[in-house]
């Protein structure tokens, strides 16, 4: 789940509205909240109001549990080192669950980010990979190598979908982000 600045904004806005932690506490308990502030029994509308506020707070508190993410949005230390051959080139897919790496020997390795394990190996190039590009849907992967070729892979079956030859080594091959 993306945890970006919008979450922080939403939470701080909530806190402001409720007047800090005291507000938070009283909203969590309908009876204390209503009796303290209005001194009248709980009725239908107030209850539904409380329910929406409580739901919003539960969401915010769930985010709080992962507050490290809220506090810092740039990485700090090395947490993993993964290796498959000699990688020269990297690219995350749009969703961020896979990382494609290109190797010196021309093999393209797709890593699963959650498990840090290899999900696929694509063999077809014979020279060092220079560039990788994912399609918007994440099904196709375009790789280019120093051996004057670019291959569009279909990850559904892990086979090469198309191959294009050039008259020189290819530095960068970028898929149009709005390919169908």
């Amino acid at each position, binding site marked *: 789940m993306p945890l970006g600045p919008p979450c922080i904004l939403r939470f701080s806005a909530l806190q402001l509205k409720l007047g800090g932690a005291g507000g938070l506490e009283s909203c969590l308990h309908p009876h204390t909240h209503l009796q303290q502030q209005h001194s009248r029994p709980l009725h239908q509308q107030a209850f539904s109001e409380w329910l929406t506020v409580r739901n919003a707070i539960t969401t915010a508190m769930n985010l709080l549990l992962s507050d490290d993410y809220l506090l*810092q949005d740039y990485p700090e230390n090395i947490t993993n080192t*993964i290796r498959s051959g000699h990688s020269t080139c990297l690219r*995350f897919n749009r969703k*961020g669950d896979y990382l494609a790496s290109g190797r010196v*020997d021309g093999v393209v390795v797709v890593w699963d980010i959650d498990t840090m394990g290899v999900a696929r*190996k694509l063999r077809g190039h014979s020279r060092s990979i220079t560039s990788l590009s994912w399609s918007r849907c994440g099904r196709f992967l375009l790789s280019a190598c120093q051996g004057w070729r670019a291959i569009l892979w279909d990850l559904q079956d892990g086979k090469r979908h198309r191959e*294009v030859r050039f008259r020189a080594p290819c530095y*960068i091959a970028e898929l149009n*982000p709005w390919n169908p």
Partner: protein
Amino acid sequence: MRAFSLTCHSYEFAASLFEEQAYQVDLTDPIDVKRVIPSKPKRPETDDNATREKWAKEDGKQMTTVTIYASTGEHIIAGTSKGWLNIIDTKTLEVIFSKKACAGVITTLRLTGSGKVLLVNAQDRIIRTFHVPNLSAPDLDPDTIQLPEEHKFQDVVNRLSWNHVAFSSTGEYVAASTYNNHELYIWERGHGSLVRMLEGPKEEQGVIEWHPHKALLAACGLETGRINIWSVTSPQKWSALAPDFVEVEENVEYVENEDEFDIHAQAELTKRRLDREDEEVDVMTVDRASDDGGETSFRMPILFDLGESDSEEDLIAVSTGTMRRRSPGEGQGEGDGEGAEEKVAPKKAAGRGRGKRR
């Protein structure tokens, strides 16, 4: 032809080549169509013959070194060997705007997720960011396009060159790997200040990639070809597991309830357990919240054949159905086809001394 295009998706990509013109390649038809992407910058009209000649001479030797697509896919942003930035219409392949960004060869171009900020790395040791105008506005006039420079990032003290650059997921930070140096630099884009130098293994880092929505950075070691991943390490929080779980600093004497540790008859326990198992568990309903807001996403089929995916451990198939772990020191050739090694190695000692062979 129509029937074919149903099975074969129409795909288009831009490729920049070594000492050659860049191409736009259309894969819609079975035989790919290549079109040259122009690298000559768009110059203003002039009557002066000398200037025109000078420009023609300058532009003749120019090559496109980097090509990326603008976020809408309607324009290509290209960088040239003379430091020019060209914006090219993907349909007509005409340069609609040019700007001299720097003196050196442009080596990397990157856009933020929104496509509004452009990151340029060039051989003049300066990383620049530019504001990209809305190129898909209906009333876009090519003559009024502006590409204002926002920040310059450089290390004036050490005079460092940058191997590769990346934007953070939101575009708030800029990260760069350094030439002939081990650190990764992270700048904050708001003020243009350096916030962090990431130290890693004693190795120069090449290509870097920032995760599309996490605070996670991946970089390739140039010498060993290892992929290093930096992220935030969160301390363990046991109270997150259960709401009534309290973390204590010191030992606390626990006062138990009257019946908390009573011994019940085995028969009753079994009955209680069986009663609990009668509850129906809903495993069919898909949680909407975990779905990514509507965008058609592709899920890669999982490979069950270990030989194809050989992950984590170094396993070798000895015979049908038997695997054995690769003994250390075996098959450590550098990137030699089959002898690939994958390793999740948090320990630095693991695999030291590999990849020295050249």
